[in-house]
């Protein structure tokens, strides 16, 4: 594109890179590039890259706050997988992912399609659905903790009004996780809605108009135009929903503290408990690595699945 003329005058090392895009001096550019990058890279290495590697390292060590670290191979992994509480945490977290994934994707898409229409008021409804995004998790927990209260909560009040017996929600091990799932969908489905909305707005009107002229009904247009064109958005939304589902913590911590009967005790709370209340860093790091592996497996499986469809 650009010519040699764009090079700063007086730099003689130019010959080597004359054909390079941008046309600038290559080594000079490399130096400049790394100068610009260095502050971020320093933070990234110190607080992202090294901690990731350290987490894996610590998972193979006995590491208490005091005392010298010691390599113990897979002992931490053996310990956590022999711990019924960790297995419960995996089971509970999986249940949470199962309960949230489909509503988060389907409802996200349905809301996007509803609010993508050219009707008065859609902007207002979008704002209302989006508002929970800026509410912090403690507040979400405090608010829904009361809404789900058996005696004085609004949820049971309106359920009773349509003839449903009051449910103990957060005090009943069968209902505690569904209650957390409902709270989470209310809180975060807006992210998925926005991604779908952006994708829907990229689909050209003409495509729909042409299909309509050819006699395609709304259902056919949805299946043959909208859905295929939404595939990248669908893949992103599904991956994010599942990864974030496995990372659930704050809602459970504030609303139920993992209870009742450990029915909402999740993997991240296991990490928190093990590391920062029992001060067993090795097993906590191992649980973190297990969490990483689970999310990786799910992301890969989901990518494969999206390709196959």
């Amino acid at each position, binding site marked *: 594109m650009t010519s040699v003329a764009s090079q700063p005058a007086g730099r003689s090392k130019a010959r080597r890179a004359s054909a390079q895009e941008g046309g600038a001096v290559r080594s000079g550019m490399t130096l400049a590039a790394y100068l610009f990058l260095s502050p971020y890279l320093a933070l990234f290495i110190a607080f992202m890259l090294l901690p*990731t590697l350290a987490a894996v390292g610590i998972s193979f060590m006995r590491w208490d706050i005091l005392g010298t670290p010691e390599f113990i191979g897979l002992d931490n992994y053996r310990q956590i997988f022999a711990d019924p509480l960790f297995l419960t945490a995996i089971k509970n977290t999986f249940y949470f992912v199962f309960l949230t994934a489909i509503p988060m994707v389907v409802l996200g898409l349905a809301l996007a399609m509803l609010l993508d229409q050219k009707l008065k008021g859609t902007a207002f409804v979008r704002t209302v659905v*989006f508002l929970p995004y800026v509410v912090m998790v403690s507040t979400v927990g405090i608010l829904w903790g009361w809404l789900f209260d058996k005696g004085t909560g609004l949820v049971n009040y309106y359920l009773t009004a349509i003839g449903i017996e009051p449910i103990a929600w957060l005090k009943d091990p069968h209902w505690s996780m569904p209650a957390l799932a409902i709270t989470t969908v209310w809180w975060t489905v807006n992210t998925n809605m926005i991604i779908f909305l952006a994708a829907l707005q990229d689909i050209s009107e003409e495509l729909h108009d042409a299909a309509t002229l050819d006699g395609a009904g709304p259902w056919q247009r949805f299946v043959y135009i909208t859905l295929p064109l939404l595939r990248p958005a669908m893949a992103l939304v599904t991956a994010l929903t599942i*990864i974030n589902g496995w990372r659930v913590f704050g809602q459970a911590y504030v609303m139920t503290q993992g209870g009742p009967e450990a029915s909402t005790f999740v993997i991240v709370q296991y990490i928190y408990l093990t590391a920062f209340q029992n001060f067993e860093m090795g097993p906590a790091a191992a649980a973190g690595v297990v969490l990483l592996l689970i999310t990786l497996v799910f992301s890969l499986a989901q990518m494969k699945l999206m390709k196959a469809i």
Partner: protein
Amino acid sequence: MQDQRSNRAGKSLSGRALAYTLMVVVTALWGAPILWMLVTSIKPESEIYAYPPAWIPDAPTLEAYGALFQRFPMLTWFRNSAVVGILTTVLTLAVDALAAYPLARMQFPGRRVIMGVIFATFLLPYELLFVPLFLGLNSYGLVDSIFSLTVPASANAFGVFLLTQFFQAVPRELEDAAIMDGCGRFGFFWRILLPLTKPGLATVAIFTFVASWNNFFWPLIATNSDETRTLPVGLATLVGGAGMSMKQSVLMASAVVATLPTAIFFLALQRHFVRGIAATGIKG
């Protein structure tokens, strides 16, 4: 659910009626909890648990807010959250913009690897990092400090990713002309690139601030005194344990106070939020 699609073009009357019905239902389901929070926070004690629940208080009062600020170090938590949010935002914006410039606009060895590694962290469950981060900061005596709440958070890749996209959209010719005029790379970056990409910078700033404001797990670990505790961690202490007997009006007042800054931010700058999510799909 399917029928709503039929009026994408908004033509048939029944389709429109259905769409509006659904919109009312959606508004009620998503708006009611927020409204209930506001309404309850201004109810006097006698009305909080009234049956049936009243959406309009008979005698609105601010006593719950008074009790909240009197009994808890709300102002300290609030100040901590504000300081942490602003520092994190400024630091993140500075390092992210500097890093995004070469990634977006320069060819250099290692570029692809660096981008690959940085953006791979999108898939990383950050909870994995907290044990080593805590141990590392603890060994330098930095736990329970503003440092531990601000600097590590600036390693987040979201801003680099978003700004790289914004910077790529600026025409090459501008850069060539600027450098030919003796502007230099930094001159171009500072005087031309940044002013041209203000919407992108605003988006990153807003997201970083809101993420910091709402951040819960790391501050829960990294703080152990009210001197550094941020709002989300402080508020979590209101429920459970000693907070069990807390009046709902006080709890809801805390919810209103915590939500107000980000809600105002959001209502004023809604399009930046939407752009940020649409571009990356990253939540906080």
